[in-house]
């Protein structure tokens, strides 16, 4: 049920991810193509890379990546080429720039804040005077015995 929408991608075209006829003959170049396509989003899918996607558009993008590689582009140049045409939206790995810094730093900052707060709290607990134990009422004693017997 949950993946229904993810699945809609599969309806788009009954082909599977990377096709044998799309692959480059040069294994080194093909390896680089795979690496790049794993970081690019299939635009019509939900959070799927073009490497995994079955959609026609993903297939076109895979071919485009390979074309650029054969033309001699570096990995970064290929990614730039694609981003220029399709926008930031295609990058599965959000850039570490501008407002995205908030996204990247949120985790470490929260961790730091959490540890700091916990440190203060734990220090307080360690120094707190041992409290006098409050006696249980008779009813509570009875009940405790009852629970422990069980």
């Amino acid at each position, binding site marked *: 049920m949950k*993946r229904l929408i993810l699945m809609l991608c599969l309806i788009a075209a009954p082909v599977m991810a990377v096709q044998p006829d799309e692959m480059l003959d040069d294994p080194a170049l093909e390896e680089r193509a795979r690496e790049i396509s794993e970081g690019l989003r299939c635009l019509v899918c939900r959070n799927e890379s073009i490497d995994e996607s079955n959609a026609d558009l993903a297939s076109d993008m895979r071919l485009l990546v390979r074309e650029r590689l054969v033309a001699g582009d570096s990995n970064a140049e290929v990614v730039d080429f694609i981003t220029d045409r399709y926008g930031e939206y295609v990058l*599965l790995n*959000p850039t570490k720039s501008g407002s995205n810094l908030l996204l990247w730093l949120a985790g470490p900052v929260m961790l730091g804040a*959490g540890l700091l707060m916990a440190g203060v709290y734990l220090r307080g607990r360690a120094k707190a005077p*041992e409290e006098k134990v409050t006696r249980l009422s008779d009813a509570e004693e009875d*009940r405790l015995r009852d629970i422990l017997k069980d």
Partner: protein
Amino acid sequence: MVTELGHFALILAFLTALAQAVIPLVGAHKRWPGWMAVAEPAATLQFVLTSIAFLSLTWAFVTSDFSLRLVTLNSHTDKPLLYKITGVWGNHEGSMLLWVLIVTLFGGAVAWFGANLPPSLRARVLSVQAMIGVAFLAFILFTSNPFLRMGSPPFNGQDLNPLLQDPGLAFHPPFLYLGYVGLSMTFSFAVAALIEGRVDAAWGRWVRPYTLASWIFLTIGIGLGSWWAYYELGWGGFWFWDPVENASFMPWLIAAALLHSAIVVEKRESLKSWTILLAIIAFGFSMVGAFITRSGVLTSVHAFATDPERGVFLLAILAVFMIGALTLFAARANVMQARGVFGMASRESALVLNNILLAVSCFVVFIGTIWPLVAEMVFDRKLTVGAPFFNAAFTPFMVLLGLALPVGAMMSWKRATLKPILRKLTPVFVLALAIGALAWAMQTGRSALGPVGLFLAAWLIGGAMVDIWSRTGRGAGRIARLIRLPRADWGKALAHGGLGITMAGIAAITAWEAEDIRVMQTGETLEIAGYALRLDDVTREEGPNYRATVADFTLSRDGREIATMHPEKRVYPVAQMPTTEAALNNGFLRDIYVVIGDPQNSGGWAVRTYYKPLANWIWGGAIIMALGGALSLSDRRYRVAAGARKTPQAAQTAGEVPAE
């Protein structure tokens, strides 16, 4: 007729829930026993009525009553009976009905097994639970009614999405819902305790079974979903950091944190306000999950805007419950005084660290999930947050958690001395390091993830073993004592070890997977990771409601035949949808995974083959974790019904102790 009965029962359930939400709450406030006592029969009635509604919908699906809109849209007479039944929750309306059924089931559980709760607390818990029932019953009745009829019923239905016609996915939602909704129970307990103004060790003990049960169900549900994705989607991915997956993962992380902090409340009466907060947030994330999956807001803001009714309703439910509970929390948190005193090195501190790591990692998943929305609305940037972000931002937390866990798990309450613990763990640490180093040496130029993952796995599994062994004391008879240890101890060791096993699987499959994509003619053989795979034949077959292309492969190693494998490509004509059925050869140390693709123009077939090291460890670990949870749940000290069989008098006297 049956349908109208179900519809009517659902409306009655809504009215019952309304009564149950108000009367016991007033009763508890005014100390009127008669009003408080309304809660139990009302909870039972609510469950019975919702069950009638659910069963009548199931009946409509089983008998293929196409006068129901929902059945027409999601069923077909040719569909196997199993999937007619599971089809009930394979759609929005039916799944919400299942959700409410579970809400009332948990409410019923408190009514039936909660005899040892003080009457006022029980009345308040059931009242809050009924409020949740009211909200979701209203949601169903007003926006997602499953009992709508069609003016002119068609002769046959449009079939269930074929991808859902699979045992793995058929049972994935009920488990997830049991988990999500189980957290509504801890929420109700938290809010009731806030109204009551009292959180003590007993509260920690009462909440524990529900937290543990939800966590177990979430573990199984997430595991089933991931396993399904692995064998069904055709490339053996097991986790995609998809928003709907994250929606189920966030409550799991928080439930794991809650599980541990509730122990501190129970044993040491500390961390009370934090635990209450976690209990509130945990259910908040469950509802966020419902909102994300039901409103379609993350798929596309525009899809949400065109049909906002359901999304807005869910958002309103989320807002009312969270704002209400958090306001109550802010007003009452100061009543809960921390009691226990403990040192920096202590079980308490270790569990605080556990909570920080789990809560912050959940926060990272949350912010990654909603960031595309925030970026578009606030910064006008249309961007994607995909797997690379989560892998980079989330993994370090799990590494830290794995590193600290074996040490923390062995610390004693109040004040721990690290030295003896470290001494006991040294052999495990050295062994784990050796395993990691071996993995590092055997691989060339691959990511460090594999060796680090194997190191952590060995450290966690070994640590769990040392932990449980060290509980048997000294001298003779340790084995006998080991067997007699409380089930909760065994549960802890299994759950922690299971986490290690899952980590090993994830690390190995990520780091050392091998893949082969090619065109094969019949009779041809390919080699992958030392295995030979021969394509013998490709045939066409007819299934009950699909047509299939079936390939016959022979898998062999060193010239010895191991197995035959039959991957399929299916086409479901009614739903107009193809699916891939991968063939798997499961092994303890590896899976071989074959998928047959399209026929090629040049003749032959596209074939994709994967070698997946330790693949089964991922789900094996999840099963062991769930098993550990179940063992812990069955520990007689924590049994839900503990004391329920006692004379009701004892509970009565205890209940008369005035609430502070």
